[in-house]
């Protein structure tokens, strides 16, 4: 069952799905709804009786369904949703940054960020296998950078539907409303029990870590492509400075890391693929090997810093390695992040190591002066 409400830049996906349902190439109910809250509510309804569901949204829409996000994860409905990352009003902007999904990081959904079109497509398929695993039963939010991934045309391999069917058999679950074994669902629980349900949710998310790895492996066996687990390291082996990225900016960073490496810098990048479950172990381990970690945030939590940075820092605090960390706020409201910007970040990191740069957080390419 597909249910979605239009919003730029998610619309490409929904329109294409409408066509596929129309021409019969996709067997699914397509439900038009009057808001995103209803789109996700409808998915929960269908999921509660064991149907497989999909929805897609972006920014304002994601926030409009915020209540349902928590509801779906608490209800353990294995829904898959595509979120086209877009800036949040106010000011209005249809352009990409990641404040929408990152500001809802705590909603109990598995959060994946894709780097390119191929990974986006492949992760839709993998997401169902992850979400519907009975140890996991947690919805997955697949994040695609608005325009950069939703409106860029590139060539990709589309797996055959037979292969996909083989990889992803119909969803079977005992935890559903069933005419033969009636259930009461989505109920209340008092102070005596509520915490246990929350613990379960946390546990399921931790259990997802192994499932994610396994699913990627079997995907590889069938389709010949793999992405690694919660993170992908790129040239980190002998790196002294590492930049942490999320989503499509990774591609640009790869180029810069290649260039700088050629110039003799010891730099690498860590692509975070999953923000939840968070790659705590991977980052702790990395912090033992490198001297400085920079984090690009296409978001900001006003009055503090970028959310990815906060999360990465926490892992580093727990590793107690005391390495240098720096935060680069970039790309807000669709601002382009150039190779030059990324070079600048590495420069900041180096200055930080030399003690020349004291600010642990800065806005990159703000375009205006901010001195008092």
């Amino acid at each position, binding site marked *: 069952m597909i249910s979605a409400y239009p919003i730029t830049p998610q619309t490409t996906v929904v329109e294409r799905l409408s066509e596929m349902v129309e021409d019969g190439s996709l067997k699914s109910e397509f439900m038009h709804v009057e808001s995103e809250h209803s789109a996700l509510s409808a998915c929960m309804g269908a999921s509660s009786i064991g149907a497989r569901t999909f929805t897609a949204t972006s920014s304002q829409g994601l926030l409009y369904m915020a209540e349902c996000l928590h509801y779906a994860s*608490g*209800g353990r409905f294995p829904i898959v949703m595509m979120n086209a990352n877009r800036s949040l009003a106010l000011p209005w902007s249809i352009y990409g940054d990641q404040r929408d999904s990152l500001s809802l990081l705590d909603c109990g959904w598995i959060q994946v960020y894709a780097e390119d079109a191929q990974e986006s497509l492949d992760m839709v398929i993998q997401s169902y296998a992850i979400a519907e695993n009975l140890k996991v039963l947690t919805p997955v939010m697949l994040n695609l950078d608005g325009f950069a991934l939703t409106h860029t045309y590139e060539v990709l391999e589309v797996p055959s539907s037979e292969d996909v069917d083989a990889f992803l058999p119909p969803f079977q679950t005992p*935890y559903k409303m069933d005419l033969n074994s009636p*259930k009461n669902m*989505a109920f209340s629980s008092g102070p005596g*029990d509520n915490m246990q349900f929350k613990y379960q949710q946390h546990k399921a998310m931790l259990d997802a870590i192994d499932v994610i790895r396994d699913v990627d492996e079997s995907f590889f066996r069938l389709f010949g492509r793999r992405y690694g687990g919660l993170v992908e390291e790129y040239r980190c082996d002998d790196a002294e400075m590492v930049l942490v990225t999320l989503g499509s900016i990774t591609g640009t960073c790869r180029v810069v890391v290649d260039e700088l490496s050629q110039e003799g810098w010891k730099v690498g990048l860590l692509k975070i693929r999953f923000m939840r479950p968070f790659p705590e172990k991977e980052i702790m381990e990395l912090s033992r090997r490198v001297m400085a970690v920079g984090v690009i945030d296409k978001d900001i939590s006003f009055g503090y810093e970028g959310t990815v940075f906060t999360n990465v820092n926490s892992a580093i605090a727990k590793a107690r390695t005391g390495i240098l960390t720096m935060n680069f706020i970039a790309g807000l409201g669709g601002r382009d992040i150039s190779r030059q910007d990324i070079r600048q970040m590495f420069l900041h990191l180096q200055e930080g190591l030399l003690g020349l740069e004291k600010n642990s957080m800065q806005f990159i390419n703000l375009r205006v002066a901010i001195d008092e």
Partner: protein
Amino acid sequence: MNRPSITKYKTPVHISEYPVGPCYQAGHLVTENAGWRTEKPILDKEKCTGCFYCYLCCPEGVIFKLDGKIEIDYSFCKGCGICARVCKSEAIVMIREAKDGADGC
């Protein structure tokens, strides 16, 4: 009586004893409502004509049919007095509940 009955609730001691997510057997009762009453409906079988209007009106569904008359499941009757009020034959009267001793809550 075509109604769910009370299951004794076993407080879970291990997380695995909890249902997976908020999804559990329908109609699972662990406590009764008898203690809520301050008054109690008493049927005069003689007067009852078996019209079953009280049966339809009871908010708790605790009135059931038996041999053309009605009976009351007192463990879930809350003593609202609706049955007594709606009975045209005045077959039900409400009497003050004798409160005695611990309920299961």
